[in-house]
């Protein structure tokens, strides 16, 4: 008998992280001279919705393809539900549903036949297949469209069908690449609700999207990727409150934007604001004043009290929090490969 060694993969995917469903460990993918993914590491817990955002060409789709067992990493390891995507693709595929950016379609096939084909391809037989079709078509609200040819479907309907195909074998992990791209607002809302329902059902979701406002409302955590590298990862709040480092290497204070509406124009307000140590970038347009505020909420309340105590006639004092888009823009530099 020869000695049998335990592969590194078995140690890495240790059971102490049983709650982790998706895990990437220093994954890199190189195409010729282009490093599409560069030492990417993150993990997604069971039942979590993880948003994956980054500019075009950042490496999102490549990472998702690796997780979906369509590509192999040049270096590093990735696991889905504890199984290596490289060494156990068959086991991963049973657990995983992948919804690509583009929509793979067949001519002369209707919605029901399309889903039926994939149900058969996943090995579902007779009753199991019929039940799966029924549930999926009901969930995606395509049950009235069963006999409609795919070619005649709207973009939103196609996305539903694509999601239906992804769900046909009841995967526990879903990887959705730009599911909301090209959808109208109503279709986006419906898709968001479906994703929320899937998360409530205990499924783990990795969702990439360019529509950050949509993503912010449905995800538990976000990862921001650029040039193949993960720049930030955490909850949306954590990302928003993240102190960024400027080009000189100094830590920038997190700022919020405040909009002040006065009953009538009052030059004293601008003067008072200029004297406040937390205020910067003051812009006065008639009765409206906008400025950046670096202090916390208590200091914000103190500023408002000071203005009122000085008999400034304030109609509106609105603190606008940074959005995910702001965070995205501040974290990324818009560089593409």
């Amino acid at each position, binding site marked *: *008998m020869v*000695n049998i*060694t*335990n*592969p590194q*993969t*078995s140690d890495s*995917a240790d059971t102490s992280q049983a709650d982790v469903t998706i895990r990437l460990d220093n994954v890199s993918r190189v195409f010729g001279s282009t490093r599409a993914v560069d030492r990417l590491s993150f993990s997604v817990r069971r039942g979590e919705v993880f948003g994956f955002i980054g500019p075009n060409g950042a490496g999102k789709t490549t990472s998702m393809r690796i997780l979906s067992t369509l590509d*192999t990493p040049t270096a590093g390891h990735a696991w889905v539900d504890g*199984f*290596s995507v*490289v*060494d*156990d*693709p*068959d086991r991963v*595929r049973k657990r995983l549903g*992948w919804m*690509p950016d*583009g929509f*793979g*379609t*067949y*001519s*002369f*096939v209707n919605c*029901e036949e399309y889903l*039926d*084909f*994939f149900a*058969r*391809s*996943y090995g579902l*037989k*007779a*009753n*199991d297949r019929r*039940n799966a*079709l*029924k*549930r999926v078509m*009901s*969930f995606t*609200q*395509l*049950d*009235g*469209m*069963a006999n409609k040819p795919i070619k005649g479907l709207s973009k939103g309907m196609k996305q539903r069908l694509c999601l239906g*195909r992804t*769900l046909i074998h*009841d995967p526990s992990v879903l990887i959705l690449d730009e599911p909301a791209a090209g959808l109208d607002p109503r279709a986006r*809302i*419906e898709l*968001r*609700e479906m994703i*929320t*329902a899937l998360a*409530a*059902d205990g499924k783990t979701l990795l969702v990439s999207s360019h529509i950050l406002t949509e993503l912010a409302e449905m995800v538990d955590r976000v990862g921001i990727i650029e040039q193949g590298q993960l720049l930030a990862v955490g909850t949306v709040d954590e990302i928003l409150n993240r102190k960024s480092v400027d080009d000189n290497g100094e830590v920038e204070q997190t700022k919020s934007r405040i909009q002040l509406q006065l009953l009538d124009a009052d030059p004293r307000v601008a003067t008072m604001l200029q004297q406040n140590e937390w205020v910067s970038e003051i812009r006065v347009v008639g009765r409206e004043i906008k400025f950046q505020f670096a202090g916390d909420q208590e200091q914000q309340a103190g500023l408002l009290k000071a203005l009122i105590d000085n008999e400034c006639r304030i109609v509106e004092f609105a603190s606008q929090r940074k959005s995910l888009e702001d965070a995205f823009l501040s974290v990324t530099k818009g560089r593409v490969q």
Partner: protein
Amino acid sequence: MSELSPKKPADVELVQIPGSSLTATPSSIGHRFRDWISDFFSSIMVKEARQALKSYQFFVTYTIVILTVAIWTGLMFFGDSNNFSQTNWEDVSKNLFYGYCVILGVPLCIIVPFSAFRSLAREYEDGTIQLISITTMKPYQIVLGKLSTAMLQMVIYLSVIAPCIALTYMLEGISYPLIGITLLIAVGGSIFLTILGLLLAGASRSYALGMGISVFFVLGLGLLYLGWWTLLNEIVDGYGFNANDIASDEGQVTTYGFTAFLGSVALVMLTAAAAQISFDSDNRSTPIRIALLIQLTLFLAMLVMIAALIRRPEPLFGMSLFAGHFWLVVGCMLVSEKPGLSDRVQRSLPKTWLGRSFFSLLMPGPGRGYLFAIGCLLASILASLTIGICSDWFPILPTRNFYGGPAQVSLSTLVLVSAVTSIYPLFYLSIVYLWMSFLRKYTRLQSTGALGPFIGLLSGFLIVTTISLVAYSLWVNFEKPYGNSYYYSNNPSFSGCFNWYIAIGSIGNDVFNGGGNLLGDLPYFLPFLTIAIPTTILASLLAIRDLRYQPTAAPVRVVEEIERNQAERHAKPALPEGESIDEIFGALPDKKQADE
């Protein structure tokens, strides 16, 4: 599947799509039966059959075939209506059969293989192959699904022609063995071309490449279709191709040999087509090598058949020569495989000494590929040599020479022929193996993926051609074999000894012209042997290093799942997958429920 229900947003009412109740629930016995029976077929076949039934292409082709058959039948029967009573029905029968086969050739030789090619190529172009490949379907199931769809089409086209062919038999112009053989050639050829199409489709990774391959493939199919016409002429006219020819000993050997060769090549192509779809870490090599082993077994069976039926030594030499060329070509591709073994493959490596001794050569890797190829080559040559030697001992074995007289093949001739047919391909293959090892080390050859075997084949072709041409030039310059006439001398020489064909020519000349002085020729090969033997030993030593490997254990998570699945399997009663007949037909919704 767990119950899913999209949560309705509080502030937005979801669009309720009007329509009938879900059609996924079959409401009739017929529907349920179709659904149940379709479970026995490939999902790809079911989908493509549905597509074909709705497509114009299939409808148009099918209609054209029916119309053409009808027109041809009408022309043959009523074309010469003035002399209807004096019609030679035997000739009519032959002409009808010829025409039907020409018509049948279009779908079987062109449409079906090209449709299969396009079907798989389109999956690559549209990206749907990715959607299929991440299902639980295995790559070979995908390829077999495409093949079964093509075979279904063949059956449909044959069903149009079958009654007409029966008519030609009834008119007594053509015998049923010839009808059977013709249809077998048509269907077998169509299956072979379909598999070739599926293999080529795997290389169509981009639209441009796919179109380029499409053009060449359809042109090739067109040429083969012309060849089919020629073959039909031979069949119908009975010149050089009739039932008696096939029934003879030589005919049987040729037929079985040709069929076995094409069948085994089809098997290798099928495994290669599946390998193209498979995942990077999959073991792509072992199925191909098993198919090659089947090919080797058929080759050995053919040797025995030649010995038993033809009983002449020359075909054995021909088979040895064929084996030399074949394993050189296959070897060039095998030595170009990726050198590393994925963890997945390492898990499946034989763990016992016995297992390693027998199965290591079936595992992926250039070194193992080299050893596998030379092992198969030597097995073929040695089998041929053994049968030749045994001919002196057993009366059923080769006893006649080329001219029908008693065998005059000496042991030294047999050994020398075997040596020439094995040492040259061994040498060339060793050079290719060393060259590919060099390329792997100093270039980015490893990242060429599926192109690797083609690079190996091209390298092999260039290396063998260069060595042969240089040797040929030297031979022509120094030996002046043509002298002052167009007849060249076959005398062995130092200068031409690196050229395999010059060596074969000189040995063959001695064998077929009274034996000659074969042992006396040996010194002329010394320069070649001085280089070939060390080169082969060096390549073999390098390749043997690949046999050392470290099997790995399955990860804990995998072992856990296997154990859990086994426990579940033992706990469950052995029911068929899916459902029972009672479940299919017993639980139909009542009319009221269906109406609701």
